[in-house]
C-alpha cells in the first residue's frame, strides 16, 4: 500500500504552510491520490502503472505548494464586483483628478515664478496668492486642468465598463472626481466666508470670483467654477462611453463574463 499522505507531505515540505496546515492538506490530497489509484486499479490497470500515473499527477505542477499557498491566501487580495466596478476605478480617478490639479498648479507656479520672480514671495502659499492675483495666469491653470477632465471621466467610465459595471456604475465612476471638487468648493466657500486663503490642492488656481458670471454671488461663482463646469467636462468624457454601452441585456451579460476573464478585472 502506497503512503500517499507521506508523498504529498514530502512534496509540500518546502512550502510556506504551517506544519498543521501542511498536515491537513497532505491528508486531503493523499485521499485524492488514493481514490485515483484505486479507480485505475478497478478499471484493470495494474498496480505499478496506477501508482505511477497517480505519482505523475502529484508531480504535474512543480510548484504545487506555492500554487496552493497563493490560493489559500487569496482572500485578502480578492475584490468583489462593487469594488472592481466602482470603488477602485472611482477612487483612482478621484486621486488622479487631485494630482493633476496640484501638478498643473505647481508647474504653473514655478514657470510663472521663473519669468516674473517675486522676491517677497518665497513660500508656496505666497506664490499661489501672488499667482492668483493675475487673472490670466489663474485662468490658464484652470483651463489647462479643465481640459484633462473629459479624459478622467472617460477613464473612470471605461474602466468600470471593462470590469462589467452597468450604466449607473459607469456614470457614477466617471463623476467620482466631483467629490473632491465638492470638498474644494466647500473649503473655498468657507475661506471666502472667513476671509482666509486656502492655497492647497488648486485652491489658489481658481479664477477670481465674478470672473465667469459677474451677476452671480461669490459662492455662486465658486459653485459654477468647481462643480458645474468641471462636472460638464467630466460628462463630456463619460457620455460617449455610456452611450456606446447601450447594449442589450444579453450582450451585457456576455460582456460581464468577458470582464471576469479580463486580467485587469479578474481578481
Amino acid at each position, binding site marked *: 500500500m502506497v503512503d500517499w499522505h507521506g508523498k504529498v507531505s514530502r512534496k509540500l515540505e518546502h512550502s510556506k504552510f504551517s506544519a498543521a496546515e501542511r498536515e491537513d492538506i497532505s491528508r486531503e490530497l493523499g485521499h*485524492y491520490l488514493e481514490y485515483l489509484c484505486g479507480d485505475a486499479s478497478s478499471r484493470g490497470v495494474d498496480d505499478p502503472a496506477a501508482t505511477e500515473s497517480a505519482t505523475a499527477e502529484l508531480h*504535474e505542477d512543480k510548484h504545487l505548494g506555492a500554487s496552493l499557498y497563493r*490560493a489559500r491566501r487569496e482572500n485578502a487580495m480578492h475584490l468583489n464586483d462593487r469594488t472592481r466596478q466602482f470603488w477602485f476605478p472611482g477612487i483612482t480617478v478621484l486621486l488622479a483628478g487631485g494630482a493633476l490639479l496640484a501638478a498643473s498648479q505647481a508647474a504653473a507656479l514655478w514657470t510663472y515664478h521663473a519669468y516674473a520672480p517675486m522676491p517677497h514671495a518665497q513660500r508656496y502659499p505666497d506664490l499661489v496668492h501672488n499667482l492668483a492675483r493675475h487673472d490670466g495666469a489663474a485662468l490658464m491653470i484652470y483651463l489647462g486642468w479643465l481640459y484633462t477632465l473629459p479624459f478622467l471621466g472617460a477613464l473612470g467610465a471605461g474602466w468600470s465598463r471593462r470590469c462589467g459595471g452597468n450604466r449607473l456604475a459607469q456614470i457614477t465612476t466617471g463623476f467620482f472626481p466631483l467629490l473632491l471638487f465638492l470638498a474644494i468648493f466647500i473649503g473655498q466657500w468657507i475661506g471666502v466666508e472667513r476671509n482666509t486663503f486656502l492655497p492647497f490642492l488648486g485652491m489658489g488656481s481658481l479664477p477670481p470670483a465674478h470672473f465667469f458670471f459677474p451677476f452671480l454671488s461669490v459662492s455662486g461663482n465658486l459653485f459654477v467654477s468647481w462643480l458645474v463646469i468641471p462636472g460638464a467636462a467630466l460628462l463630456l468624457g463619460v457620455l460617449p462611453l455610456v452611450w456606446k454601452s447601450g447594449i442589450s441585456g444579453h450582450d451585457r451579460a456576455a460582456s460581464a463574463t468577458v470582464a471576469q476573464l479580463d486580467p485587469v478585472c479578474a481578481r
Partner: protein
Amino acid sequence: MISSNVKRGSAELAILSVLAHRPLHGYEIAQRIERQTQGALRFTLASLYPLLYRMESRGWLRASWGETPGGRARRYYRLTAAGQKKLAPLRKQWKELFRALGRLAEAPDG
C-alpha cells in the same frame, strides 16, 4: 488556444454547479464534472485543489472534514450562501457568452 482565465472561469462554474446538489469531496467533484461533461472537462490534482482553495478563500465554498458512508474521513466541500448567489448569474453569463459566440460563428462572412 483557450486562455487560462477562460478555463478558470468555466471551471469555477463547473464546481459550483456540481456542488449545488450536495456536498462532495475533491475526488468526487473531479469525477462528477468529468462524467457530466462526457470528458470535455477533466481536472487533475494540480488544477482542482488550487481552484477549490481559491473559491474557499473567496467564501464561495466551505470545507469541513466528514465521513464517507464507509466511515472514512474526507474533506467535504459545500456551497455557501455567497457561492449560491454567485452560481445563478454565472450560469446566465456563460450561457449568454456561448450564445453570443454561437451567433458570431453562424454569422455569414462580411
